């Protein structure tokens, strides 16, 4: 098609992580044309799927930074968003442990930070109070910060909810669309070229995570550099012999919050995360030292932690804007107007996301974008059925309508065939084994898909109308199987 005849979007958001999906969810409230371009075959495949999912309330960012402003703002929005968008949220609270006098000072500092950052319900408690709340905590803990308002989410589920709601309200979402070139036309609009197509837009929001600087460079912008801070994480079985219900951290260092034990919304736990800078942006491999650090970290919090309860390891890279005091890099480009950076979104990018989205919206408005409410805007999104949470009566009703809900595919997490089929045909449906897992939890449990992978694979092949050997595990070149046997 001739470029001039192409639809002119008001805003194109590049990158479908928690930042990009948060922004399109926010922009969907307004009467503008918005599109999201994501290079992977699913949303939230980079940092957003490789993190701890803690909605930190905002006691640790240094007062005065963007983080200190956006983290508490975002975190406060989560409980209502969880209601409107029907995603899981668990109120856990956080404790930050002090093991020394120096740590206790740090705890006091964090309490002060909390006050300045406007974070409520943060207090200092004694070691005994800690162990009253969590009996398995180490005797060496002298005291702690207790933040009552911390919640836990599954960041992938949140990103999907954001994206589905935006789509419902008219946002165009293009997957497998890698932005490869950006040019500014004479009329002041941008032309974006992907591996598939070209798009025209008046404004760009660059939320490309660890690649945000590379995307900016395509538009001739060289205002900052991104490097990844890699983190290993472990998933822990929901039958931990020393169960906990509060997120637990040691005292933080400038680069990292330290190794935490995190109770997840669905009952299992995460140990996260290590923090080492990497130069290879694609490296999300696990390393033996990192995993050992995690286990050591867990033992420091809970001395009797059972290493045998780990069921999986994974990793992600936090996009860090260099020479920026560990702050986010969110502003309009100084050199190319109408190009908004939503970059350097390191931790706590998940917690901050709704706050970042509003901030980006205001930057767009300041840059001249006219934001009128969208007529007929729908602020809700309904999650698909989670069978394991239904009562017997509800189960009977659902099965009567569709007997596929009576067939359990994943026994560890009690996921039915009906749910998997629904996940495939959702507005932003799954089309890989891992995509099904992230949406339904099939394969997440302790057997790690040993029993259900072949079933999921066959359902995918059937529902997508493709041969079984064409079913992908995750990335584009990741066939589960390599053909047929004789």
């Amino acid at each position: 098609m001739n470029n001039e005849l192409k639809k002119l979007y008001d805003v194109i958001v590049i990158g479908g992580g928690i930042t990009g999906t948060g922004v399109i969810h926010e922009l969907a409230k307004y009467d503008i044309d918005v599109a999201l371009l994501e290079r992977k075959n699913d949303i939230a495949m980079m940092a957003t799927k490789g993190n701890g999912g803690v909605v930190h309330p905002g006691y640790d960012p240094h007062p005065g930074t963007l983080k200190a402003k956006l983290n508490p703002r975002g975190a406060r929005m989560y409980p209502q968003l969880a209601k409107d968008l029907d995603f899981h949220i668990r109120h856990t609270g956080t404790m930050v442990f002090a093991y020394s006098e120096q740590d206790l000072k740090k705890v006091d500092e964090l309490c002060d930070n909390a006050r300045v950052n406007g974070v409520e319900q943060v207090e200092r408690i004694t070691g005994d109070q800690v162990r009253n709340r969590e009996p398995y905590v180490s005797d060496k803990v002298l005291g702690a910060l207790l933040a009552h308002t911390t919640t836990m989410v599954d960041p992938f589920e949140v990103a999907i909810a954001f994206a589905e709601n935006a789509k419902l309200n008219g946002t165009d979402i293009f997957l497998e669309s890698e932005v490869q070139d950006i040019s500014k036309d004479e009329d002041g609009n941008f032309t974006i070229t992907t591996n598939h197509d070209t798009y025209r837009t008046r404004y760009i929001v660059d939320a490309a995570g660890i690649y945000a600087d590379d995307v900016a460079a395509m538009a001739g912008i060289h205002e900052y550099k991104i490097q990844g801070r890699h983190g290993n994480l472990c998933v822990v079985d929901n039958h931990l012999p020393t169960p906990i219900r509060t997120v637990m951290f040691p005292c933080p260092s400038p680069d990292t919050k330290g190794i935490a034990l995190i109770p997840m919304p669905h009952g299992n736990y995460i140990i996260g995360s290590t923090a080492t800078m990497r130069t290879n942006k694609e490296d999300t491999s696990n390393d033996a030292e990192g995993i050992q650090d995690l286990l050591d970290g867990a033992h420091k919090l809970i001395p009797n932690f059972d290493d045998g309860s780990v069921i999986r390891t994974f990793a992600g890279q936090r996009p860090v804007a260099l020479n920026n005091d560990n702050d986010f890099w969110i502003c309009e480009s100084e050199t190319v107007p109408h190009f908004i950076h939503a970059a350097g979104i390191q931790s706590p990018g998940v917690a901050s996301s709704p706050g970042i989205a509003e901030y980006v919206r205001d930057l767009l408005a300041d840059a001249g974008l006219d934001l009128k409410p969208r007529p007929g805007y729908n602020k809700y999104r309904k999650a698909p059925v989670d069978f394991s949470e239904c009562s017997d009566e509800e189960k009977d009703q659902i099965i009567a309508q569709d007997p596929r809900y009576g067939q359990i595919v994943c026994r560890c997490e009690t996921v039915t065939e009906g749910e998997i089929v629904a996940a495939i045909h959702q507005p932003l449906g799954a089309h890989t084994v891992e995509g099904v897992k992230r949406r339904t939890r099939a394969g997440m449990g302790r057997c790690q898909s040993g029993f259900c992978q072949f079933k999921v694979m066959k359902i995918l092949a059937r529902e997508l109308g493709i041969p079984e050997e064409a079913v992908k595990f995750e990335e584009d070149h990741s066939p589960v199987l390599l053909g047929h046997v004789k």
Partner: protein
Amino acid sequence: MKTYKYDVVIVGGGPAGLAAAVSAKKQQAKVAILERNGELGGILEQCIHAGFGLHVFKEELTGPEYAERFIDQVEDLDIDVFLNTMVLDITKDRHVSAICGEGVLHFEAGAVVLAMGCRERTRGAIRIPGDRGAGVFTAGIAQRYINLENMKPGTKAVILGSGDIGLIMARRLTLEGIEVEGVYEIMPYPNGLYRNIINCLDDFGIPLHLSTTITRINGKDRVHSVEVAKVDEHRQPIPGTEREIACDTVLLSVGLIPENELSRKAGVALDPVTKGPVVDENLETEVPGIFACGNVLHVHDVVDYVTTEAEEAGEKAALYAKNALKKSDASVAVHAEGPVRYTVPEFVDPEDGADKKIKFRVGAPIEKGVTVIKAGEKEVYREKKAHRFLPSNMEIHTLKCSAIAGVRGDLTVSVEE
């Protein structure tokens, strides 16, 4: 919601469940088998190699043939079978709830037999570092893909762990034209049965590398290589011994874990070593009327012993349901000692007049030894002939009731070199 009433409800329709059902039925009990799959036979359905039944039938059968013998009996005896039916909960008072394509089902059971089998230990559980692309399978799932789905998991494989399924799969892959570069075992001795090392590796020229493990898996989308390294006596990789091997597939045969999620829900106490229920000689768990047998109780070496154990559990469950299970109030604990890792049962009744079958495994190979059982300081059993003990073999010994009648104090089972 439908409600059923049975004397004995059997959870799981694999070899253990089938044998338990047949045996309970022979005691005139009303029996139901609940099976989540669409067919009976459990894991045997995918074990198309021969080697089953040598003890029970004195014949070498394939897995499906072995299962068929019991499935036929289940049909002949008119035992009720609920297929595609997944048990979601069991209560202490033996209320079993399940779902199937017709909805939620409830069962009131006089006795319950747990026969859910086991699952394979995974890559995540052993925390192999590296990338997490496609191409890493447990040996069992690879077996399923090849034998039942006619699908090819890869073209060149490295196998980690020398458990029996891994050994069997080394041969199976080779027969399907999939190259097996080698089998790597972190321990200094193999984990599978001796006969499988000979028949599955040696006969095909597949090398077995002991004291060696995979230290890294490479390939973000799909596996393209692994790094292996020798390990020291603490199972830690020895720097400088790393070697990279190109492959597109990794099979794991690194252990089996009894599947006791439902047992936990029923409040059944588990043994930290076997990861299966704690049982007495009747195979009854600490929750009255709930019995366990087969791999859900402890991982067995051959299916024949699962069958004999399950027959006993089925019979005892039927007797329990009819209030006819004989028990005295006496009970002594059975402890594993020295090289013995665990025993099943963990409790016996010294006064009920019945001989006791004591099963156990050792933690490391013993070249020559004898099994000794003591009651306190008093020796109550000594094996006559010294022999080799291997961790891969389950030992079964019969302790005469007369030998322990009137004993006080716990029994200890050990092996003397």
